[in-house]
């Protein structure tokens, strides 16, 4: 019985996050809270496991299992916790955007915040991006610290003038008189089946502009630490999330649960050490790179996978150091190839000290240079797949 119980727990941890359990009489009541990225409706499931006293189930076993369970946090929850803590910490912080309040967030990222903080701090806006983005920037200029949510960054194009001309450039144009402490956040890049107008990656567009910081987290820890840093930063930060990552759980270290856990903006992280080739990526593609690296490891190819974490300012030093060790480089991104993030990385490597260490041309793995199609087979073939990364690594190493 205990073995069955154990296996059931392991199975559930993959998809479920257990919040509480209650041991009542001879029954253990497990309340699970499940959010799937395909289906954003949370539902409660109560499983009643019958334990007989004769099986001597030790309370400590249950505690251990629940400790493991509790440290699995989805990206969505990490973002939610980060915003909750920052709202609590600083009264000037507030959130505005479409459906962030009473709807609990279009993707449920702001779930529970309106109930806790009310209308003053969690503001539902009409569907007027240019207007509310401008209002958010103005509020930042006058001393508040807004978090402006775009339902997806595709809609930020309607407000891009406010992000660039009103937010990013102002500190410079005013020679330091007027700062703009604002965060623009929302899902970026391809999702699943949402077609051309809802799938664009804006990392390169925003990464192009001085005066902006552009952040692209991958894991739950990234999301938490970087969002906190972004909110505490006194400058305009564009925070590019990914819808497909919202429901993915990650283990969070003890340290990362602290209320003051910050990840510095502008520093990349090496997710996997390796000697043969450097693979640089950001956001969801990091998952694919790690999967590809796992497959390649079986063939004896050790990839060093770098998670950029920040698009601007770009941590070129981390990439250079890695390239000087591995002598090979590929970049992996979901966005379009022309004038993209990969193009910038390659240019920097060319211009920097790492060029002389390259044994083969550095290449980019990117989304296909087309608007995103709808049909599943077409969509799947419009973004890099694990096999594309493996193929590019092998080509680079054999070249």
């Amino acid at each position, binding site marked *: 019985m205990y073995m069955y119980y154990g296996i059931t727990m392991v199975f559930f941890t993959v998809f479920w996050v257990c919040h509480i359990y209650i041991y009542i009489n001879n029954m253990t009541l497990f309340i699970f809270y499940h959010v799937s990225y395909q289906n954003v409706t949370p539902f409660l499931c109560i499983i009643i496991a019958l334990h007989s006293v004769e099986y001597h189930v030790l309370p400590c076993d249950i505690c251990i299992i629940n400790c493991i369970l509790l440290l699995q946090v989805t990206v969505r929850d990490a973002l939610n916790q980060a915003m909750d803590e920052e709202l609590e910490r600083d009264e000037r912080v507030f959130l505005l955007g479409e459906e962030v309040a009473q709807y609990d967030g279009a993707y449920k990222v702001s779930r529970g915040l309106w109930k806790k903080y009310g209308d003053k701090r969690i503001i539902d806006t009409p569907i007027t991006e240019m207007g509310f983005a401008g209002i958010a920037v103005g509020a*930042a200029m006058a001393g508040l610290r807004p978090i402006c949510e775009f339902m997806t960054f595709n809609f930020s194009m309607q407000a891009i003038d406010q992000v660039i001309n009103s937010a990013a450039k102002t500190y410079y144009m005013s020679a330091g008189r007027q700062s703009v402490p604002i965060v623009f956040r929302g899902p970026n890049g391809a999702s699943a089946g949402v077609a051309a107008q809802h799938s664009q990656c804006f990392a390169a567009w925003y990464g192009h502009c001085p005066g902006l910081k552009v952040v692209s987290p991958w894991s739950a820890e990234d999301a938490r630490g970087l969002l906190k840093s972004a909110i505490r930063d006194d400058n305009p930060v564009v925070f590019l999330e990914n819808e497909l990552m919202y429901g993915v759980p990650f283990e969070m270290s003890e340290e990362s649960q602290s209320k003051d856990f910050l990840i510095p903006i502008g520093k990349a992280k090496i997710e996997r050490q390796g000697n043969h080739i450097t693979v640089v990526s950001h956001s969801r593609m990091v998952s694919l790179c790690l999967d590809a690296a796992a497959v390649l490891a079986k063939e004896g190819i050790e990839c060093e996978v770098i998670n950029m974490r920040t698009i601007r300012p770009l941590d070129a030093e981390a990439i250079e150091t890695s390239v000087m060790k591995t002598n090979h480089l590929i970049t992996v991104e979901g966005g379009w190839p022309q004038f993209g993030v990969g193009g910038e990385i390659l240019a920097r490597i060319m211009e920097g000290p790492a060029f002389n260490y390259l044994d083969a041309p550095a290449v980019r793995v990117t989304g296909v240079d087309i608007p995103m199609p709808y049909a599943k087979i077409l969509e799947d073939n419009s973004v890099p797949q694990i096999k594309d990364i493996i193929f590019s690594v092998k080509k680079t190493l054999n070249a």
Partner: protein
Amino acid sequence: MFTLVTERENPTFEKIISPIIDVPPSPALITVKSPIINPSPSPAQLTPAVANSMVVSARTYADFTPQATFDIKKCDLHKLEEGPPLQAVLTREEGLQYYRTMQTIRRMELKADQLYKQKIIRGFCHLYDGQEACAVGIETGINLSDHLITAYRAHGYTLTRGGTVREIMAELTGRRGGIAKGKGGSMHMYTKHFYGGNGIVGAQVPLGAGVALACKYLGNNEICVCLYGDGAANQGQIFETYNMASLWKLPCIFICENNKYGMGTSVERAAASTDYYKRGDFIPGLRLDGMDVLCVREATKFAAEHCRSGKGPILMELQTYRYHGHSMSDPGVSYRTREEIQEVRSKSDPISMLKDRMLSNNMASVEELKEIDVEVRKEIEDAAQFATTDPEPPLDDLCNHIFYNDPPMEVRGTNPWTKLKSVS
């Protein structure tokens, strides 16, 4: 406490025994018996011209009227039961101050015109002469602790919001002594509670509503005045802002400075409805004469009261006129006639209007006002001198002010070997 001043025969003015004004003729003909006033000593008293005139007409400062009440034009109202008062009280001190400020703006803009033609100012330069009553009237209707944002025709507001002529002119000439250290230029000047100076037409309107949101959020009883022109009035983001400002009852005064032309396009050719004060629809609106500084002041006070009492936003349309073209590259006569410009100058000039009022009511002397003119001219000359001799910003400053409160960082120069330093 009142000492009767010996009356003198003076055929120009009607004499009224009662101290209360109840005669409603044109403002030029009202006189009040003056109690002793105590003006601050002015250098004007000491110049030979004044001394001579004092000898000739034997007029002392005790003669000046300390204050007068003027009729002002009624405002057109939209969704308002009552409008601003129909009379405005102007004290002598206020009158002199408004005159001085408007004259400073006028002369500053004309000097900028001159410097631009000498190629000492470059790029964009949008001049404000003709519209002085708007900037001065608005500022007198609010407090310095309130907030203001406008578009690119901003030199006048930079001054009324606390900037100095020196800083403004040095910014126009791109020198290190400029209000934005030479990095902003004509369209990007900032002071405390003044958010520019914005180059993108209409973008400043949502920004202004955001400032108002901050005022409401922080509960500081401050308001934001958010200006735009007749050209910008058709921008979509302005209507988005009207909606949200009204929904959330933001303490925001939207002010449309209607100078009849959006660049070269007259209002009839640009807007299906030129009743800009009604374009806010559900937002109450006022239309008034923007060439009359008292009219602007009273309307602004009225609007500020409306906002501060929590009723939400309000819209004002100021009917005004610019003498120069849209910018320095526009002579301003291809889309309007010289006669039109001349007519406005002779009949509705804001500075002349104030001057006539004050002189007719014995609130100031011609010599005194001339003296102010001389002082203003001197101030502008000094500022222009500074603006042309101050050095340009140092090259080390090129990459500074990218981020606030950040450690120093490196910025790529024009080639990979050039690494430039940037500090906050």
